[in-house]
């Protein structure tokens, strides 16, 4: 389904330890326009809770968060 969504920015967060994946997403959210989407791939399992928690506490939207093999893939939409 993620094929239907236009991704504005790809972030490779593999190998980064928490909370850095969350930090990188946060730093890059202003690099996409409002309504734009970041696709982030992390390997640290902590990111599975941290990135959605960050998105919701900052008022952004997690479109999907899931495990693909040993990787965690997130689609984050900039809301404001």
């Amino acid at each position: 389904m993620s094929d239907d969504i236009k991704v504005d920015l790809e972030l490779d967060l593999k190998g980064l330890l928490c909370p850095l994946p969350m930090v990188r997403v946060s730093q890059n959210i202003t690099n996409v326009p409002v309504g734009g989407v970041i696709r982030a791939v992390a390997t640290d399992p902590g990111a599975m809770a941290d990135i959605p928690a960050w998105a919701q506490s900052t008022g952004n939207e997690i479109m999907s968060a899931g495990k693909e093999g040993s990787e965690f893939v997130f689609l984050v939409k900039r809301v404001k």
Partner: protein
Amino acid sequence: MDSQQITTLTGVLDKKMNRQLKQYLDICARCAICKDACHQYVATGDFTYLPARRAELIRQIYKKYFTKTGEFVPALYEARDPDENLLDELYESTYACTGCRRCMYYCPFSIDTAWILSVAKAILIAAGRGNEMLGQLADAAIFKSDNFDMFRDVIVSGFKDIEAELKELTGDPSAEIPVDKKGADILYVALAGAHSILPAAAIFHEAGTSWTLSMFESANYGFFFGDAEKARKIADRFMDEAVRLGVKEVVITECGHAYRVANIFHEAWTGKKHPFKVRHILEVIDEYIKDGRLKVSRCIDVPVSYHDPCQVGRNGGIFEQPRDIVRALATDFRDMTPNREQQWCCGGGGGIVAISEMDAFRLKSGKKKVEQIRATGAKIVASPCENCRLQMEGLNETEDLGVRIAAIMDLVIECMDLPGRKQAAEGA
């Protein structure tokens, strides 16, 4: 700047005023002995980062609004309003500060510049100038506990993945990562990543410890952000868990600030004594090795050095246990000069690693650490603080140090007789 905002900001200073702060603001002689204590000032020569200067900005506000002489003759003290210029400089010098308190060590009056800057952060936050990233990280942590039901399954399933790795590593299919275990001896508070859970789980498994893993990470960005209320809430997450589970002690993972928050700050913030002990994981591991509960071999034959994280050493009081652990693992241990309470800050503390605008400055500020590491000739530099390791990894790359930066627990795992690790090594 209108008078309303000035009232707000001086109100913060008034609210945060206490005896120590007042004395620090009254007695500093501006002798600048602290200048050579600060790794940031030494590396850049930039006046903004001179410790006494950082504190002087708060002193200028204090003199104008809290002392009669400063009110009537402000020129004498260069006393002034917390205006935009002052706040600009204050932001830079305050959020750059790693809180290592090396300046306090050398100050003839033991002035705690970091404490003055904790008030500076409260002022910046009230002015709407708190660092955004640190604030977001703090809010995310609080959001996670406030809406815990939303995250519980994800977190637990993450732990299950790590548990599978643990079974493989220990070669014991019954090895487990317990969560929510009432009556366990130890509540282990890790970081959000697997790297701080798996090694500890293997060590606890080998030592036969009765333990349980906290649902929450120990990292505390509320502390770095400078909001004591948020910082307390973040620490409350696992402190409340510890009370609920009735553990004997809370053990903090290899992390600097989290240990100091748990061990020193939290009781002061809540005004309540903990019904359990708080220890650093390295204290526990050192005890296990000395008691023979954990068997390790002296498996590292390259020179190893140890970096005291400021919040673990000078500000946490743990100097010898990590050294003893490293000596039990390595044939050639080489301390840095200076070391222990005089150890140079690596430049990665205080949340600065999360502030990307300060990245270049941060790496530059590691100059002293680079010199120290080079001088040891070590091939491995071990340190029990995630921020220190991130910073030293950065220095390792930019300065071509050719060392391996390692967590102590990782070294312990390497020197334990673990069937899974052997297989992994043979497979590789």
